[in-house]
């Protein structure tokens, strides 16, 4: 009953004309940026983030979420039509989406991708709605030590899972934490690492870091293949975008099976859409009666990862709003957006700002409906944008990046910083240093330090406070486990393989 009351309250916030307008606008913009080749959801959200600064917190957050949903819906367009994934999680959509286009079934592919995304998001939103209150109730018991260990756990898991090199992931993490220590220390008023530049006293705006690291880096990276992109001819004329009964019958099973899996993967820190879509695809391929059709335009092979991708993205928002701890780079950007609006996500958000907390959850449902409308009847219109030559697109994106960064802080120093972070991102990409840990650290670095110091104040400087409660011990164990486990198992396997290897 309580849930029904809350969600109705959330809905009443979302359907206010102003909010609904921004939600629709966000869904359209999100679908467009998600669609553009080489610009993934994270980059798209980063680019559009400054637009939300002028809005009231509730409208800003709803629009932010709408951009996110839209980007998730639109992400697969380019995979289906051009065989170019917009981001890592839509790589899988290329496998069967593009062959479908080649077979002349582009309409069905676009339709099933929108429908699967819709069902995935709706189901996941239901789950998020039910799970939100119990999680926040539990989290209300958290004090500074528990928060500190929770954040350590999220950072450790994000850095270690799904990363190639643990060391480089942690180097990226430390770099992010270093960036957050720049500026005036909130607890003591001491200036740290300001280097005599007055603009740095307020710290580095996280918008600057993400736009630099995502948008600017992305453009530099895309320059490498500039001469070959835009060569693929694209289908621009479409019939009615819909699926046949037969195609629907084949897809509904995979969609319903892979949605819960995507949701659970989304909740876990460190595992994002890439893993969810890969797993969904492989699962369906294994249980399919016609595994040989996969990769040759099987509609199930497109429907399953699309559903998983959207339910995963909803899953990723859940720990972000209920605990205030993001589990992925994109969720970290959303968290940053909340903090810019002057809100502290976490269990207290549900008590102090229920209109925003429940508004976000209700926006998942409404956003799914709006995105479906945007991506089904209007899909043929929107994908025309894919025909804009990248040679004109990239300079424009760069100009938008500068504009966004300037309006975020009204400081020219930020423009230099943007260039520096773009270069840093390029250097990191070149040396295969993951950027997600850095982004995550930049967003939660400051609360991490604050909770650490608050805990030490509570305990008079004794580190034992982090081992006092069962929750924090469990979280610390999880953090250590997530780092050690993958490598311990690899080590054991190696050991078993060469039992006679004698140490010299």
């Amino acid at each position, binding site marked *: 009953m309580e849930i029904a009351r809350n969600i109705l309250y959330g809905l009443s916030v979302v359907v206010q004309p102003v909010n609904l307008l921004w939600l629709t606008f966000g869904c359209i913009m999100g679908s467009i940026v998600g669609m553009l080749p080489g610009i993934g959801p994270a980059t798209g959200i980063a680019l559009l983030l400054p637009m939300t600064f002028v809005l009231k917190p509730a409208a800003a957050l709803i629009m932010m979420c709408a951009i996110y949903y839209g980007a998730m819906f639109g992400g697969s367009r380019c995979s289906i039509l051009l065989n170019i994934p917009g981001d890592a999680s839509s790589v899988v959509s290329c496998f069967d989406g593009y062959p479908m286009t080649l077979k002349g079934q582009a309409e069905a592919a676009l339709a099933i991708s929108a429908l699967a995304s819709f069902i995935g998001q709706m189901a996941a939103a239901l789950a998020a709605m039910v799970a939100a209150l119990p999680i926040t109730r539990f989290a209300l018991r958290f004090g500074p030590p528990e928060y500190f260990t929770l954040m350590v756990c999220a950072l450790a898991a994000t850095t270690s899972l799904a990363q190639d090199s643990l060391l*480089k992931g942690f180097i990226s993490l430390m770099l992010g934490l270093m960036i957050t220590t720049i500026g005036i*220390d909130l607890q003591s008023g001491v200036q740290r690492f300001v280097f005599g530049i007055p603009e740095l006293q307020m710290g580095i705006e996280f918008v600057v870091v993400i736009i630099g690291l995502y948008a600017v880096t992305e453009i530099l990276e895309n320059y490498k293949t500039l001469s070959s992109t835009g060569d693929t001819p694209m289908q621009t004329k479409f019939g009615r975008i819909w699926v046949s009964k037969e195609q629907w019958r084949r897809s509904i099973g995979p969609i319903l099976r892979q949605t819960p899996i995507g949701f659970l993967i989304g909740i876990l820190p460190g595992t994002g859409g890439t893993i969810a879509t890969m797993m969904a695809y492989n699962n369906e391929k294994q249980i399919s009666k016609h595994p040989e059709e996969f990769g040759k335009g099987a509609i199930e092979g497109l429907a399953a990862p699309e559903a998983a991708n959207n339910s995963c993205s909803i899953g990723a928002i859940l720990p972000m709003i209920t605990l205030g701890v993001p589990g992925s780079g994109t969720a970290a950007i959303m968290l940053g957006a909340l903090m810019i609006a002057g809100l502290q996500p976490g269990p207290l958000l549900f008590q102090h700002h229920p209109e925003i907390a429940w508004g976000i959850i209700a926006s998942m449902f409404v956003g799914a409906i709006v995105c479906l409308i945007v991506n089904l009847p209007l899909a043929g219109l929107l994908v025309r944008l894919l025909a804009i030559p990248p040679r*004109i697109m990239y300079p424009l994106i760069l*100009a938008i990046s500068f504009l966004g960064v300037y309006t975020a802080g009204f400081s020219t120093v930020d423009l230099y910083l943007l260039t520096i972070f773009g270069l840093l991102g390029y250097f990191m990409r070149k040396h295969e240093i993951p950027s997600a840990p850095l982004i995550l650290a930049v967003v939660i670095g400051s609360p991490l330090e604050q909770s650490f110091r608050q805990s030490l104040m509570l305990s008079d400087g004794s580190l034992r406070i982090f081992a006092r409660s069962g929750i924090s011990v469990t979280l610390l164990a999880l953090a250590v486990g997530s780092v050690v486990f993958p490598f311990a198992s690899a080590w054991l396997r190696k050991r078993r393989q060469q039992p006679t290897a004698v140490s010299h």
Partner: protein
Amino acid sequence: MRQLLRLSHRACRIIGYFDPGGAKMSGDFTVGALAVLIGVAYSVQALRLPRAMIGNPWAPTYFPLGIGVIMTILGAALCLRNLHRRKPAEQAENQATQAHDKPAVDKEFPRLALCTIGLCILYAMIFSRLGFIVSTLLFLGAMLFLVNGKRGWLANILVSVVFTFGTWLTFERLLMIHLP
């Protein structure tokens, strides 16, 4: 000396278990060395931070110092990891897969990237001096001529003018945000 070498070899192997991907790239030693450099410089700076006037005078120092020290250790571990190269066969295989994974890089890439960075810095320099309209017209125009080439001159000029005035009007009139 030999003992030291053996010790480092063993340390390298242990790190290897924890970081199987760490020795993929030839530039990883540089990354490690840079991390050590940053870590040490940052730690030294952290120690030189002013003390807090209230509460524990060292309170603002602990956290940065910890980060700096961990960074140094991580960098050192990455260096060590790459000190003793893996078996040549394995390495060749790694490089082969790498070459396979990465698409060929355009010839014009270095020129484009360098000019873009240069233009970005110039833009930052002239932004508040010349104002939004003039600087954006110049920046976007230059970027478009750089990336799109001289042949698309009409499109270049049109796009820069429309974008510049379009955003200026949106921000100044609709959103009431003042641009210089």
